[in-house]
């Protein structure tokens, strides 16, 4: 069958790159000497766009610790307030209030502490005095003080930016971040012999922070560089994330650790006694949280500096080191060509919606610890701990395995031991994961039918999944297996996880032990009395974080290095020949990175889902959605048909329908999967457990909700997804509860309740807050996102500038709502951050690109008369209406048309023909910036190395243009004749030219593909 033009899609595969300037080095994990003192601080700011410093508070504490983690104590020995340098002149009344407050209050210090002399005075210092007399004096080594303190704040980048007096772009290893002048005069003059502080944001929870190397004075350039000291800058938000695996605010973190938290918030942006009390309490809460978080941290017997514990993966990697496990890439010499192949086979989890916009009864099943479970099944721990792992060519062996493997065999655990490997196929309708632009500039991964005349690499589990989904055995043209040696690494040693759970890495499977011990701890917590349950819960939570972090992510870690100049890297892609490419952000593998294992783990998880899909469909049943480790199966107590557009069955009334399995059938499926249970059945009775039950409404991948209808016509949302809503601010008024008892956001439940009811009755009124303007939060986290503010800041004093890490809010402007005469491309409204929706409409708004221009008002009334400075913005209601129709682009409807806004019912897999293969690197973790519209250049988030494979051009586009002469074609495309001739002669066109050619073909009445060449005539032997 000749493919339709719409099936030709750009496809992307990951590649392996080698940067000769960044050779892999063994990491040294040095620990600083014991740190005996801490400086904790917090700042309060104005609520205008500049968010300038008003005042702040700090505590200086002594740390005492012994071998017992509970012996880690933090004692406050000095406390003080900070005021903005310009406050006495700018606002003498507010300054006076601070002076009076400091004189009439005593510091909250422990006067009985013996090692140093606690100060009973509540200090009051200016920003400059704080920077020099406290932050530098205790936080940076100098002649009078050789042992620098740990500097602690919650969300430190924001606070450091408040107390700085200037900023420039950071260089070298912190390129892309900010270099803050903290030690300097209020006019921005930097102090000699004091360092800058560089901050590079990684994501909303993490940032690299360090003191920069001291610069030599210009007249002393002949001196060798000064010794640098990165400092001990600890963002408590990051440490808490590393320990709990969750993103916390100060308040929720205090709740999680049972520390007295914040006091009731006062009016922000004012200096009042209440505001000062509030700020001091914030610092007290931060200090208390630091103490308990560090106790928690020191329970782990690992060598890791708390200031560089950036994520649970940092803790996980430190445990591997503690067990004596050497990184795989340090032990083995792996041909980069093979790593290129396996990177091309690397895809993330599978997330799909199969039946859309059709409420159906489902039972959602969830695989217990999916990634660790497939790790245990495949023997991933042997790969991690073996003295040597060879990647050996095994094309025949793999093909034999693919030929022989059956669905039944997959329920045998020993089969999974043969899954560690990867192979190339010439895809001919095989159902495999495809990373494609299913819609313009919208890359996502869908498991679809792939057609290509070039080899495509997939892991063995993916090839097996394709076989059981299609019934067609893929033909491997080349394949490799991972073969671990029998002897383990000689350095392995036993470790006690969190000081409690002993693991012998040479004899036990780490993943199995952790998963089982977690269940054991959970069970003990449930059986314990109230007072005794907490330690078991804590252990269970820690083990969960640990197994999740070590089960997959650390093997897939790639580090993207932003840099000012390009590097020429060797790119190893799916083809056998590497090529060189200059890139601005080369990437290197993480410490424990081992792509062959990472690719197989996610492949095995997709195979599990494929097995579940086959188990359901083989009984005539169907499913609504799946997401990495779970699947919602249509099921009722007794089973039966349910009308559904595009379904494979027909009801007695002739309607298309899907078949619901009975709960007994679902239970049988679960029982069968239990054959794969690698754990102690007493602790983990099932690897496929019930997650939720009820009706489901699914829109697209990861956008679904399970609910139960009530008799009164309302619905009770059981499990909502917040995907696609995360960038929006909570529209519920800030003085009302925003979360339910189980922590779910109330407004997300409201969204789904409306989506579900509106499906039945389109007249269903929107939630009460739907008339509010849809608002997103913007944080200025990098030099790229700061660019739009350059004009704003021009010529202004530092205090009046929009500074790094400022929070702003931005509405979504209605396309028809721009004021007259403005360029929509350079019109983006921002206002100071406020989470109080009642204030949003009443605010003055500024155009980001025209800071000196007028202020604007916003309205949500699209019929409002045009007025000067009035901008119509979208409401939450508008966003909801779009949300409920968001298409599942990667699938098609029953007729084969790509899913659109109004497509409903069963979706089918699409045919994908490779239009072009893009070689890509790791996508930068800048989702927030992209959502907020602050990233204009795609290259800022995605490295595209090379584009190859022009089958689409040769087979579809050029044949359709045969009737046009080169000169005419060049004229239409806006290029010269020679370029067209070069492309026709086999040259590769630019993206722009390809699109131009495509447009010409589309404008033609018919598409005339070049006929396939006749088969060669049979010749007699």
């Amino acid at each position, binding site marked *: 069958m000749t493919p339709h033009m719409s099936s030709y899609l750009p496809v992307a595969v990951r590649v392996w790159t080698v940067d000769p300037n960044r050779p892999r080095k063994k990491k040294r994990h040095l620990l600083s000497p014991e740190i*005996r*003192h801490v400086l904790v601080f917090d700042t309060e700011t104005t609520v205008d766009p500049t968010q300038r410093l008003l005042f702040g508070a700090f505590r*200086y504490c*002594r740390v005492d610790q012994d071998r017992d983690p509970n012996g880690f104590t933090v004692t*406050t*020995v*000095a*406390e003080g307030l900070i005021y903005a340098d310009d406050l006495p002149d700018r606002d003498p009344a507010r300054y006076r209030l601070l002076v009076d407050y400091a*004189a009439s*209050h*005593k*510091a*909250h*210090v*422990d*006067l*009985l502490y*013996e*090692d*140093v*002399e*606690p*100060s*009973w*005075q*509540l200090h009051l210092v200016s920003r400059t005095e704080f920077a020099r007399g*406290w932050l530098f*004096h*205790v936080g940076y080594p100098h002649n009078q*003080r050789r*042992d620098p303190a740990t500097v602690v704040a919650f969300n430190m980048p924001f606070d450091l930016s408040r107390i700085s007096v200037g900023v420039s772009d950071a260089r070298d290893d912190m390129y892309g971040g900010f270099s803050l002048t903290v030690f300097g005069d209020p006019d921005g003059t930097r102090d000699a012999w004091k360092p800058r502080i560089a901050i590079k944001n990684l994501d909303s929870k993490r940032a690299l922070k360090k003191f920069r190397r001291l610069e030599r004075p210009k007249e002393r350039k002949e001196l060798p560089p000064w010794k640098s000291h990165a400092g001990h800058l600890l963002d408590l938000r990051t440490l808490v994330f590393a320990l709990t695996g969750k993103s916390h605010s100060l308040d929720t973190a205090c709740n999680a650790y049972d520390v007295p938290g914040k006091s009731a918030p006062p009016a922000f942006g004012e200096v009042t006694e209440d505001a000062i009390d509030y700020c001091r309490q914030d610092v007290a809460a931060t200090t208390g949280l630091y103490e308990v978080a560090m106790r928690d941290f020191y329970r782990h017997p690992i060598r890791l500096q708390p200031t560089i514990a950036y994520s649970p993966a940092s803790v996980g990697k430190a445990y591997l080191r503690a067990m004596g496990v050497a990184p795989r890439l340090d032990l083995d010499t792996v041909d980069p060509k093979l790593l290129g192949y396996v990177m091309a086979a690397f895809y993330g989890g599978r997330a799909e919606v199969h039946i859309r916009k059709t409420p159906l009864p489902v039972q959602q099943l969830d695989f217990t610890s999916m990634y660790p479970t497939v790790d245990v099944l495949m023997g991933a721990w042997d790969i991690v701990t073996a003295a040597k792992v060879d990647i050996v060519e095994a094309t025949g062996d793999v093909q034999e395995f693919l030929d022989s493997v059956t669905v039944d065999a997959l329920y045998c655990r020993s089969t999974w031991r043969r899954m560690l490997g990867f192979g190339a196929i010439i895809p001919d309708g095989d159902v495999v994961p495809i990373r494609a632009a299913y819609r313009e500039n919208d890359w996502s991964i869908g498991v679809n039918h792939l057609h290509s005349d070039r080899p495509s690499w997939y892991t063995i589990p993916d090839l097996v999944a394709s076989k059981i989904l299609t019934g067609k055995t893929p033909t491997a043209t080349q394949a490799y297996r991972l073969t671990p040696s029998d002897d383990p690494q000689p350095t392995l040693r036993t470790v006690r996880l969190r000081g409690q759970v002993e693991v012998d890495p040479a004899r036990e499977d780490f993943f199995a032990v952790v998963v089982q011990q977690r269940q054991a701890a959970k069970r003990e917590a449930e059986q314990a009395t109230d007072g005794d349950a907490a330690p078991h819960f804590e252990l269970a939570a820690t083990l969960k974080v640990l197994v999740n972090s070590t089960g997959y992510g650390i093997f897939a870690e790639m580090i993207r290095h932003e840099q000012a100049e390009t590097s020429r890297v060797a790119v190893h892609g799916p083809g056998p020949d590497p090529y060189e490419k200059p890139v601005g952000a080369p990437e290197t593998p993480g410490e424990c990175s081992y792509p062959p294992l990472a690719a197989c783990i996610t492949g095995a998880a997709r195979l599990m889902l494929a097995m579940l899909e086959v188990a359901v469909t083989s009984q005539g049943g169907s499913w609504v959605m799946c997401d990495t480790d779970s699947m919602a199966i249509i099921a009722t107590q007794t089973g039966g048909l349910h009308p559904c557009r595009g379904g494979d069955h027909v009801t007695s009334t002739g309607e298309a329908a899907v078949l619901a399995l009975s709960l007994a059938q679902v239970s049988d499926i679960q029982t069968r999967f239990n054959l794969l249970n690698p754990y102690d059945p007493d602790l983990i009775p099932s690897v496929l457990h019930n997650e939720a039950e009820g009706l489901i409404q699914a829109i697209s991948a990861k956008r679904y909700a399970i609910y139960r209808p009530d008799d009164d016509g309302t619905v009770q949302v059981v499990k909502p997804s917040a995907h696609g809503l995360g960038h929006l601010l909570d529209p519920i008024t800030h003085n009302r509860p925003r979360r339910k008892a189980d922590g779910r956001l109330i407004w997300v439940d409201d969204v789904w309740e409306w989506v579900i009811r509106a499906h039945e009755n389109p007249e269903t009124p929107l939630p009460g807050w739907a008339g509010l303007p849809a608002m997103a939060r913007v944080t200025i986290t990098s030099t790229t996102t700061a660019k739009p503010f350059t004009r704003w800041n021009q010529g202004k004093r530092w205090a009046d500038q929009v500074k790094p890490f400022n929070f702003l809010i931005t509405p979504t402007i209605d396309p028809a709502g721009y004021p007259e005469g403005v360029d929509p491309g350079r019109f983006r409204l921002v206002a100071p951050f406020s989470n109080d929706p009642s204030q949003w409409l009443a605010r003055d708004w500024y155009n980001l690109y025209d800071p000196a221009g007028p202020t604007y008002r916003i309205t949500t009334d699209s019929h409002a008369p045009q007025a000067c400075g009035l901008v119509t913005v979208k409401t939450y209601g508008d966003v909801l209406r779009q949300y409920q129709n968001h298409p599942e682009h990667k699938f098609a409807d029953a007729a084969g048309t790509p899913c659109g806004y109004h497509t409903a019912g069963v979706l089918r897999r699409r045919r994908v023909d490779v239009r072009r293969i893009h070689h890509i690197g790791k996508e930068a973790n800048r989702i927030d910036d992209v959502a907020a519209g602050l990233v204009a250049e795609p290259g800022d988030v995605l490295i595209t190395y090379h584009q190859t494979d022009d089958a689409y051009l040769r087979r579809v586009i050029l044949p359709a243009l045969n009737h046009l002469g080169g000169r005419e074609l060049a004229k239409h495309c806006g290029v010269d004749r020679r370029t067209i001739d070069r492309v026709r002669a086999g040259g590769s066109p630019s993206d722009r030219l390809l699109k131009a050619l495509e447009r010409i073909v589309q404008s033609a009445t018919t598409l005339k593909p070049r006929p396939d060449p006749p088969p060669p005539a049979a010749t007699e032997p």
Partner: protein
Amino acid sequence: MTCGRRAEIELHHPAGRSNHPEIVVPVCIRPCHDTLTRWQYAAGIELRADVDVTRGDKDRALLVGTMHLLLLISLRQPETALVPGWLIRLITRAMSLLIDEQLPPGRPGRWFPDATVPPLAVAEARFDVETQAERFREFALFAAQVIPVMAPQRTTWAPILHALADEPVWVIEAVNRIAATEGRTRDGSLDWLRVFGTAMHRIVVVVLGTGAGEERDQRALDDAWQLIDSVDYVLSAHVGRIRLDRLHEVAARSKAALDGEAR
């Protein structure tokens, strides 16, 4: 005076040169003078000459500096210390805080402790008898300088202290004999120090332990001052009249006995 070293001695101003330039003690340059100076910084004593400091803060500096000497002696010889170092440290802090609160809050040159000064480890030191005697003499002379400033009404102290300074060896011998003949430890024999220690500990608890940052009630402060008066009474009564008499008596007998043995 504090460690027994005889080389590299210099004079230390316990209250700071700008506060009470006339009061000095001989200590070794390193580490004792360094340590005492570091403690002065930690206590916050205003040491700059160009700052206008009130008389109250100057005397407060002298009190704190004196206590630092006692503290250093106590830490250098913990086995023979009559009052443990930690208690001296807390007493010093409590006295400094109490005096600070008695003085006007907005006065010039008011000083506070500096918590950022890192703590110093103090090593123990052994004294031979001769050095011990010299130390005793120096301390008696130092006390003779301090008392007219701190307690001008205690006129009886000066001759006693000078007498102690004249014949320190015999006083040490007397103390040792009292301990030996009465079969008790030195702490036990000098029970007034128990009273002193207990009372001071109560002061520390009242002044420092009543909740950091909270306003102490006037009654607790009055109690503290009363305790200080009690200690003062105990010191005056026991040391001034009874114990020193007894010391002199035993010292005289010891001297006579030793002279006889020598003959």
